[in-house]
């Protein structure tokens, strides 16, 4: 199962393409910058290339291979129709700066997707261009800052629940804010009274996740929003968990001012081993004027328009806080997400959240007698079930259970997140898993949990049946080897 590196099997003289030989004597217009030195890039013939990467792929786990119960990550089935559509020449083979008359269909996709996003969330506008969820968070916070600055209000603090995703405080800090924690109550939800007590003229925004990272709906969000608005601040909602409520609950109805939507979580664009993502941000009426270009907004006649630099004044979108990226954003993800939305429709998306929540509660109730479920008493969970490592034998922790699950043929759940639960295990089944799959997973999960409680030492060295045993992450960080170095 060890596959060499391309640097070990390829040579700079080998190539898997057929191009004309270089004529070094040809005149050039390179202005004296012509490269002489070797670059050191190995090449492989096409058969070698295909085999190398095919073999490498087989050391990966993916949704296509099995259940992927990663909490907060919504690893659902990626329909292949989406891939087919994204490759249609009219989407894949068009340049972002073609004359707009030649890309009406592409702009139509953006507008149609914007319509879906705005309608599903009950919001007013949407900034389409953010490249990923964290980029969207930044966009949302910058909208808030721009709105505050526009009214001459220099608030300095953003409140973030302690269970928030790491991107939330990082984003707020990046945007120049001081970050303060909001505690959770014993139910695993935001402590409403503590929050209200902290509100004041220095608080620019509250960043909240709903459903929250404990997998629970925040029933007080409307009341929180009202309080934040009354105190002159804005409410940012982390949309990572939108899959739990899509089609059933509109965040706009809860007073949210800005929310990013991970198209790769809720709307089935593939994770691709870590990206690309796409994080459009829906905005309330108060924030919409500040959204960056390009921006999509509904005009009074109900039509949705894409606004770029040159048309900003035409559409009255003159307060845009700037531009977050070159070009129009993640077109390839838009086509996939829109394809998915059209496939499901409003009725299907409602079924999506219902089945996702049903699957999660089924796991919660099937596991709570063997694993500590800290908020099981708080009522139904949403789309993910949270467990802790209380009761494990001495010396065994969540990571050992996780690696044990690998040996059972599963990708582990999310580990040690959220931070508010000791040895947290966050399990999100999504709606695209069958009952049979979940039943098998529960059997395996229970078995490994029992072993963790019984102190099975074999777990400490798991996985035993994976392409690699546990990797030395400390060594990797202590003596970083980040690029291939030719042997002497």
């Amino acid at each position: 199962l060890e596959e060499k590196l391309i640097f070990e099997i390829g040579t700079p003289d080998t190539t898997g393409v057929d191009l004309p030989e270089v004529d070094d004597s040809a005149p050039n217009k390179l202005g004296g910058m012509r490269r002489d030195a070797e670059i050191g890039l190995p090449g492989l013939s096409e058969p070698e290339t295909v085999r190398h990467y095919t073999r490498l792929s087989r050391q990966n786990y993916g949704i296509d291979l099995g259940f992927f119960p990663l909490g907060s990550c919504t690893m659902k089935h990626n329909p292949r129709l989406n891939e087919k559509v994204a490759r249609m020449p009219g989407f894949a083979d068009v340049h972002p700066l073609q004359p707009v008359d030649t890309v009406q269909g592409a702009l139509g996709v953006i507008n149609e997707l914007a319509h879906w996003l705005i309608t599903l969330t009950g919001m007013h506008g949407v900034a389409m261009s953010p490249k990923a969820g964290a980029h969207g968070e930044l966009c949302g916070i910058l909208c808030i800052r721009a709105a505050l600055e526009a009214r001459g209000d220099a608030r300095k603090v953003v409140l973030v629940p302690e269970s928030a995703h790491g991107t939330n405080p990082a984003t707020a800090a990046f945007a120049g804010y001081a970050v303060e924690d909001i505690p959770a109550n014993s139910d695993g939800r935001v402590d409403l009274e503590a929050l209200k007590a902290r509100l004041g003229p220095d608080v620019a925004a509250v960043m909240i996740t709903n459903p929250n990272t404990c997998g629970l709906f925040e029933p007080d969000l409307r009341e929180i929003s009202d309080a934040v608005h009354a105190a002159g601040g804005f409410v940012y909602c982390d949309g990572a968990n939108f899959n739990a409520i899509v089609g059933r609950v509109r965040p706009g109805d809860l007073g949210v001012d800005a929310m990013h939507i991970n198209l790769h979580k809720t709307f089935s664009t593939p994770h691709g081993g870590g990206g690309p993502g796409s994080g459009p941000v829906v905005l309330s009426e108060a924030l919409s004027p500040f959204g960056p270009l390009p921006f999509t907004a509904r005009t009074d006649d109900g039509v949705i328009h894409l606004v770029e630099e040159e048309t900003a004044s035409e559409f009255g979108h003159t307060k845009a806080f700037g531009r977050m990226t070159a070009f129009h954003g993640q077109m390839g993800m838009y086509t996939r997400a829109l394809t998915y939305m059209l496939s499901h429709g409003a009725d299907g998306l409602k079924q999506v959240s219902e089945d996702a929540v049903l699957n999660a509660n089924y796991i919660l109730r099937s596991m709570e007698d063997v694993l500590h479920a800290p908020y099981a008493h708080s009522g139904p969970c949403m789309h993910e079930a949270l467990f802790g490592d209380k009761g494990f034998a001495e010396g065994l922790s969540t990571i050992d259970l996780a690696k044990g699950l690998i040996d059972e043929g599963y990708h582990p759940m999310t580990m040690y997140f959220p931070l508010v639960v000791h040895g947290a295990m966050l399990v999100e089944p999504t709606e695209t898993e069958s009952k049979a799959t979940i039943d098998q997973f529960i059997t395996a999960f229970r078995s490994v949990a029992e072993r963790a409680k019984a102190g099975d030492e074999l777990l400490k060295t798991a996985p035993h049946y994976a392409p690699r045993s546990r990797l030395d992450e400390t060594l990797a960080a202590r003596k970083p080897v980040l690029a291939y170095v030719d042997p002497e």
Partner: protein
Amino acid sequence: MRYLPLTDSDRSAMLDVIGAPNVDALFSDVPEIARLDGPIRDLPMHASEMAVEKHMRGLSKKNLAAADAAFFLGAGAYRHHVPASVDTIIQRGEFLTAYTPYQPEIAQGTLQMLFEFQSQVARLYGCVVANASMYDGSTACWEAVAMAGRVTKRSKAVLSGALHPHYTEVVKTMAKFTGDTIAAAQPSIQADPDNAGLISRIDADTSCVVVQYPDILGRLPDLEEIAAAAHAVGALLIAVNTEPVALGAIKSPGELGADIVVGEGQALGVGLQFGGPYLGLFAVRDKKHVRQMPGRLCGETVDADGRRGFVLTLSTREQHIRREKATSNICTNSGLCALAFTVHMTLLGEKGLRQLAAENHRLACIAAEKLAAVPGVTVLNHSFFNEFTILVDGDARQIVRDLAEDNILAGVSLARLYPDVEEFTRGLLVAVTETTSEEDIETLCAALKEKLS
């Protein structure tokens, strides 16, 4: 619903285990005010794969695909031939449907690929370390400016006037919020890059100088001179490249003294895709800067049995560990695009990349020569790789629109990029790659000749 495996009887059985009377009961925490009584209105109901495909095909056909035109657009996004095997590999479910490789024992495919990618990018850029990719070139450019601030503890960035205006705009936008000072300028419409003017703006407060290479007008600035000037005052040189194929023909920015090299990797493997997803490349020339880098890094290590393996590493820089003290809030890379880049680059190898670059340059030289012979057209550049600027006797923007009606996508008018600058009206960026045929060049010349006569 073809993507939903639960049957109604599954649902009942599961509700029984849960002890809930129905699914609505699971949503009991949702306040009355936010409960919807049925599917959201104003949206269509579910549709068959056939119907959806037909709808999307209809939208696709409303666009003029590059393959159906004589095509000369660049300005930061380049059309190259991508071998069919690239797409085959990125569609393997094991790559396509994998998650971020946080569980390295079952993610060596992605991790080894990223290690290969980082190594390729570092070599291409003449650097020692590259990260596992950023969103795109423009955001990588901003991240580089922010990093230079962390390294130098200064907050003034000097931007070349010939930096892609979208990149400039992104940097200026982000800097508004961090409080950095951005010294930007407009490009000077002249045959050679204005190195002297740029150098004159560097001072002791400067954290970095940002120079595009080749620049937005296609010219090739001498980075060595700028690097010397930056280093003289303790500033970093950030080189920005939007056409990696060029580096098969011209010296790497690292060789020429750039401290941070960032760029757009879309040209290899990824395709045009109307602007995204693209692939941000980010590398540093000096290993000591590694811990100030943003984004994911993949590193080599060993497993418990002593076998070589790869992991994400140095994550103490990142948001999920450091939260508000992270080097960036970035949480994603452009993994699948990085895979496409790496597979394409592996197929090319050094030999293929140099051949590809030579072929691009050869055709661009032909185009420049033929365009120069068209009455009413002047070629601006003294130097270029596969893109150059021409000046036409007329409004380039209107000419571009008119020619599009005859399926000639003539280039990117400077007015599209700089809508407010009157003097750029005559400017047109023309890009030529191996996908451009000599016939396409003839077509463009003939059309311009007619238009300008």
